[in-house]
């Protein structure tokens, strides 16, 4: 089980980082969200995986480590605030700058003629 879990954490990290390296704000926000899933799972797993061992006294024979859980709980809420801030900032940037590129300006395309006709930009 641990191997599978670690694989999922690694995959989520990789996906998150790839998207965070994209040039448009929305992709970056999605990437950061994926990355924060991975980080939360990673931190949570530092308390080791346990089945049927909720950290509630009297509910089970043994208890999982409550400390990483408490840390991750607040991290999830703060992560939401961070995502919200990033996405609102992205909207504000688009409103003020006229585009949604992370650098605030659209990159100069090497060949404008070959640009795809699709896309709303």
């Amino acid at each position, binding site marked *: *089980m*641990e191997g599978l879990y*670690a*694989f*999922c*954490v690694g*995959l989520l990290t*990789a996906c998150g*980082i*790839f*998207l*965070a*390296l994209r*040039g*448009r704000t*929305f*992709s970056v*926000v*999605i990437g950061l*969200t*994926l990355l924060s899933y991975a980080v939360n*799972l*990673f931190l*949570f*797993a*530092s*308390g080791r*995986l346990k*089945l049927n061992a909720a950290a*509630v*006294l009297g*509910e089970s024979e043994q208890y*999982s480590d*409550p*400390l990483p*859980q*408490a840390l991750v709980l*607040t991290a999830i*809420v*703060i*992560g939401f*605030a961070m*995502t*919200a*801030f990033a*996405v*609102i900032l992205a*909207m504000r940037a*688009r*409103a*003020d700058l*006229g*585009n*949604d590129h992370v650098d605030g300006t659209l990159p100069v*395309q090497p060949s404008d003629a070959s640009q*795809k006709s*699709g*896309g*709303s*930009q």
Partner: protein
Amino acid sequence: MSSLIWLPFLPLLGTLIPLVTARFSRTACAFMTAALPALTLFLVLSHAGDIFQGERFFAAIPWIPAIGLELAFRLDGLALLFSILILGIGLLVILYARYYLSAKDSIGKFYAYLILFMFAMLGVVLSDNLIQLWFFWELTSISSFLLISFWGHKTEARKGARMALTVTGAGGLALLAGLLILGNTVGSFSLQDVLDSGELIKASVNYPIIVVLVLLGAFTKSAQFPFHFWLPNAMAAPTPVSAYLHSATMVKAGIFLMARFYPALADTDLWFLIVSLTGLATFLVGAYIAIFQHDLKGLLANSTISHLGLITLLLGMGTDLAAVAAIFHIINHAIFKASLFMAAGIIDHESGSRDMRQLNGLWKYMPYTATLAMVASASMAGVPLMNGFLSKEMFFTETLHQASLGSLSWFIPVLATLGGVFAVAYSMRFIHDVFFNGEPINLPKTPHEPPRYMRVPVEILVALCLVVGIFPSLVVGDLLLAAANATLNAPAPNYSLAIWHGFNFPLLMSVIALVGGLYMYHNRSHMFKFQAQFPTSDPKLVFEGVIQYLTNKASRIIAFTENGSLQRYIFFVLAFAIVMTASTLMKLNTTAGHRPEIPLDALSITCAVLLCVSALATVLWHRRRVIALLTLSVVGLIVSLAFAQFSAPDLALTQLSVEVVTVILLILALFFLPQNTPKESSPRRVVRDLSLASLIGGVVGTISYALMTRPLDTISTFFTENSKTGGGGTNIVNVILVDFRGFDTLGEITVLGIAALGIYKLIARMRLFMPSSDGNGLAWSEDRHPILLAVISQSLLPLALLVSAYIFLRGHNMPGGGFIAGLITSVAIIQQYVAHGVDWIKTRIKLDYQIMIGSGIGIATLSGLGSWVFGHTFLSSWFDYFYLPVIGKFELASAMIFDLGVFLTVVGATMLILANLGQLTTSERPIQKEHD
């Protein structure tokens, strides 16, 4: 010794006086400015008697004792000597500057800078703490920058000031590094501790580094070869500044540093080699260059370099007598050089030129000044009956006793005599070229004697030259002995300050120097011709060139690393992170540990496959944003299932409710953002990013696996054991949040509130157009609030609030709590917004979310403060059990009040964000035409 603290700070207070009194007459301003330094000098002198008896005074105010930071001052013989020089010559310079500066110059500003410098200098010499000493050291660099660039309209003043600041500032950084290593080696930043642990320091492996770094600081400050070039360029300063900084005080700070750390650092081969050879080179180079200067102040500046080299050489000789001679020459040089600078200033002021090719025969115009200048020059040359002669004799004596260069030791007295020859030659040039040698050529003004009181400082100093020269032990004997004792941190050896020691080698060397110097001056035309063959290189141009080169290189590096592209920055940060983690991870021999793994089951595999597929789909379809959002939410759901599976019900609940809020938020945002992402990454970029992402993913996965398969040594046992007895709850996670680590949570909700307020401000002035159709060109549905959704959600609201209350109340003992309850409540309210629209809600729910955040944080803080009332520490909780009919036994805990604060903040923050964002879609949003 409380008055000791006041010694440096009286002048600091004094920096304000000239600024205030500049509106009165210049004389009044000068006198009032002089008042506090005079008082300080009086205070210093009042300690002199005790210090001559061998006492030392200390005063300290601790600041952060744990890391050795304090405000600590000491007054011993060396500090006394320097304080008298700084304050005494400072007072004379104040008087002199009153006549030197013209009516156009802002005298208030000048005096303020000057007193600031005086404060910094006093701080250096009185400090009893290494860090504090360095602080004042840097302050002298900065205040001298202000003084050198006082005539900021002149290019050379700005350039000279910049050069002085760069060189001394760079040296200051080296000194800081040296002092930090020194303090760490000794284990204390107290100067006295350092001076007492000389053996320890010299035995330490850090000793060579310390010596080199500290000496770099000293050499740059005291203009030692090869850092000497800044001093002649600093002559662009007004002459009172040169007389003060560049003869008596600032350039002596480096010498002071060497003398101060003499017991701790000197007396090794390394010290001898570096200090004595640098001093010798400076002594000769400075004296030689001085002969060829045409500018009066240039000659004096190079002569100062030479004399500083002489003192450095003495300090590098490693004998106690040489150190005494060094101290004596510090006094003598300060006296005659300050008077010479002032005389040069008078000549410049009254004739309009400093060029010795124009200045000739001034004897006829200003005989009185000429006499004073000649006496001072004679002292500089080392003529008997002058103070300069005495210390130069001591210098010659010491060079004769040197054996440190082995069989080549005879070089030192020979080269010292050669330097003496140069010194006589340039002193002769100063006297003969300026006051005799024909008639003045094309002077801008007809020279005349200066105002009466402008001469007074020169008269006092020249009188001192003679008095010290004739009655040395009577005048400065006690001071010199006290300073020498303090420098050596031990009783000084016996020495004699007499003028006449009989016919001996040093006297012969003096005679050779005098005769040789006169001969050299007489044949100067040959020397000038010889010197003219060399191509002239202006150190200023070289320096500017180096700076320009460095600036260009730096700009190119910056242009490469900081080109404004966020993608590049993230790439660099991540690439660096992978290098750091991967290299550490390679040291781990096996990936898997010994902890037994949980067997796999079908459900887990299914969920994991779903998670991986959704995550990959998010990446694959990230350009079609709505679809990416949908797959993202699938990932989020499975993450919350994973929390539930692995015994973290609180996390599962939180993740689930946050997931709902996040998706609603992103959909709302997507409404205003482009629906699709254009394809713009080059294939190379995609491959590069994919490689980096896979690498990091692989590393993170490996760390996670290695971590999970190793046994855990947790600190949580404490929480598990004390959760019920100490915190009164069985849900350990919640007890940690509201009790054990309640302070963290308080910070956490504060951050949440601040983020929400920031978002509110970002939204408030947002100017976005509202698209009339989706990405495919289809118009949005006209049915904005479907009746079915409205009815159901309205009936769901009380139910949702009930669930929320239940989750909140049971949170202390069962999975739940303020965070989760707050999110559930938010979701319930948001649903009403979705179903009915902002306008409909506004008239019905009158909640000010900002006040909600504020009261939430307030309640949480107050519940923490409440425990103070009962004499407990911040945020300690109280609980007890009560019995009510019908309900039964129940518990009340102060932690629930804290949790209520958390609840209110979460609801307030979430709603402030979403309600305001949602409001943008209504009639209240700002209208703007589509433009992109």
